[in-house]
């Protein structure tokens, strides 16, 4: 059993009681909600005649269903409009702070909470969304929940939970040029598989993680769930504190020093015990790209799609399904594979630094003929910062569309969708069958720089060939 890790400390602090069932009742420090997984929770609350226990600890935004071209209300999709209205209604009825479109704070829930300073070290954070693991980048324990649990949190600010085991993933070495946080996490999932994290919280640590920026750390924790781990976290350090300083909802000046002092005490101790540990040499990681229908089916860009006989028995069946669905042959390289759509955005890679890396590639080049390429900032704040830096101009000049913030084609619950069996190069996090809006659509996951490279090349290319 783990002890003296950050996970243990935060867990103990938030433990309300042990329930007769053997589960723990855990206090939730920050509850984030959005339009897709909350309406049924509010109705169920009302059916039971219950009120909110701590409405000030719930924050709402709208992200999944918002159109990214024209956000004028009412939306032309009346179902989307209805969902947003329901959220507006629920928030005003229960006095919940709501970052609506145009507020300056709207965006993908996992982008806006960190950038406004709501996400802080040592908190327990939940949201009806599996990528809540993102917030672990700040040294919080953050995980996705279902709608019934959203209801429970609204009613009691607590939920029932079983303590996870802790696996430390230690990264030594150095990331090579053209290799990004996204490649690192795709590599981890490829090596450990999509089920390895079930029952675990992942602690990402080591010199490579220390060197990453907060935005890169978010990319890594974001995709813990793709490796099966409901929650992933990174011990807070000076970078974490510098990032939070002066943010709208960060601790105020008079509390700042005590906050930092407490945050510093949260890190896993040097003599902490882990349930498991895996070590990686980051120097070995190349730009990584998925070829299949689970995020674990990826390869280094300079290698080939695995042949079934090289895979473990248990992986063969999914591989056969993937070759067929993706219409890709085992043994081939992905370089040169023609693509139809390029999507840069999502809670994995829709932040300013992601757009900057993509813009470096796009600058002075042109989107290849026949390719539809678009950039969707993760939030209104990201959009504003990017526009101040002129990134939108670089993209537009290169032939990318510059859109308004939202989840967009990450899951296509809005007008941004693949058509038929189009292939997309995507900076998002899931390549499941049908994920991007067409039942036959095909998704290749990669870093934003690799997406931009594919866009200007018209086909998959090793981004290192385009770096100066």
């Amino acid at each position, binding site marked *: 059993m783990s002890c003296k890790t950050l996970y243990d400390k935060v867990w103990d602090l938030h433990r309300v009681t042990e329930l007769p069932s053997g589960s723990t009742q855990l206090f939730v*420090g920050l509850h984030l909600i959005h339009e897709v997984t909350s309406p049924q929770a509010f109705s169920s609350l009302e059916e039971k005649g219950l009120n909110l226990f701590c409405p000030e600890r719930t924050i709402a935004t709208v992200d999944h269903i918002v159109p990214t071209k024209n956000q004028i209300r009412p939306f032309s999709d009346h179902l989307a409009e209805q*969902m947003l209205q329901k959220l507006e209604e629920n928030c005003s009825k229960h006095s919940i702070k709501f970052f609506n479109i145009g507020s300056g704070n709207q965006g993908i829930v996992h982008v806006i909470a960190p950038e406004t300073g709501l996400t802080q070290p040592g908190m327990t954070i939940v949201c009806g969304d599996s990528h809540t693991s993102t917030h672990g980048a700040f040294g919080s324990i953050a995980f996705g929940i279902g709608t019934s649990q959203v209801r429970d949190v609204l009613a009691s600010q607590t939920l029932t939970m079983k303590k996870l085991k802790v696996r430390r993933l230690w990264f030594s070495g150095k990331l090579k040029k053209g290799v990004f946080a996204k490649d690192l996490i795709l590599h981890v999932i490829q090596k450990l598989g*999509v089920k390895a994290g079930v029952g675990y919280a992942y602690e990402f640590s080591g010199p490579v993680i220390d060197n990453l920026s907060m935005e890169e750390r978010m990319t890594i924790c974001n995709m813990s769930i793709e490796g099966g781990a409901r929650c992933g976290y990174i011990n807070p350090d000076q970078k974490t504190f510098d990032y939070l300083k002066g943010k709208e909802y960060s601790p105020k000046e008079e509390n700042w020093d005590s906050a930092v002092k407490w945050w510093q005490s949260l890190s896993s101790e040097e003599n902490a015990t882990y349930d498991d540990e895996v070590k990686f040499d980051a120097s070995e990681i190349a730009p990584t790209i998925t070829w299949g229908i689970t995020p674990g089916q990826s390869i280094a860009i300079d290698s080939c799609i695995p042949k079934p006989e090289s895979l473990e028995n248990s992986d063969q069946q999914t591989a056969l399904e993937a070759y067929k669905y993706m219409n890709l042959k085992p043994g081939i390289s992905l370089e040169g594979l023609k693509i139809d759509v390029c999507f840069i955005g999502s809670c994995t890679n829709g932040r300013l630094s992601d757009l900057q890396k993509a813009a470096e590639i796009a600058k002075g080049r042109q989107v290849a003929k026949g390719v539809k390429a678009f950039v969707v900032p993760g939030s209104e704040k990201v959009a504003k910062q990017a526009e101040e830096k002129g990134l939108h101009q670089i993209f537009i000049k290169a032939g990318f569309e510059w859109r308004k913030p939202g989840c967009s084609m990450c899951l296509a*619950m809005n007008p941004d969708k693949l058509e038929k069996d189009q292939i997309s190069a995507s900076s998002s996090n899931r390549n499941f069958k049908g994920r991007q809006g067409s039942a036959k659509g095909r998704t290749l996951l990669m870093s934003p720089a690799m997406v931009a490279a594919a866009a200007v090349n018209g086909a998959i290319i090793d981004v290192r060939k385009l770096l100066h």
Partner: protein
Amino acid sequence: MSNSSDFPSGPIKKIKGKCIYLPGNDIDTDRIIPARFLKCVSFEALGNQVFADDRIDSNQLHPFDRDENKNGSILIVDKNFGCGSSREHAPQALMRWGIRAIVGQSFAEIFYSNCLSIGIPCALISEFDIKLLIQEINNFKQDQLTLDINSQKLISRKNSWSINIEKAASNMLLTGGWDATSILISQKEKINLTMQKIPYLNSFKI
């Protein structure tokens, strides 16, 4: 399709019904309920939409469309069932179609707890046993099975297989505690005590 009056409620001890086997590892929640059906403010219509794309797409009739599986209520799956997004729409869609229990080799974590919170047990079974079980289902298509949570067994006319539902989950099912809201609210005093010792709720003065 089941109607809401027989949705799980109160203590759940035994589940009786026909089995449906859905082969394949890593069946994700996007497949169980594609994202376009999440555009709703209530779960009501989801039963019809379960596995919508897989059902159109498959060359043979999808298990959920086969006559012999009509009214099936115990779903048998392989590994890592329910991976992907946290949408409770997935277990809700299965429940509204008529599923009352799932037996499989392994489950994704959020899916598992979402099922539990609506009273659908997810039971583990070994790879070895699942093969025998499926053989038997294929031989006796109409057979009723009983999933007994207390004895942790799946029982057919001829056989019985060990299943595993972890202790906290089986306690919650047997006592009705899976419907957690009222239990959680009843701890208000302890919640307040916990809040008093959390630094960020107290201006970091602790």
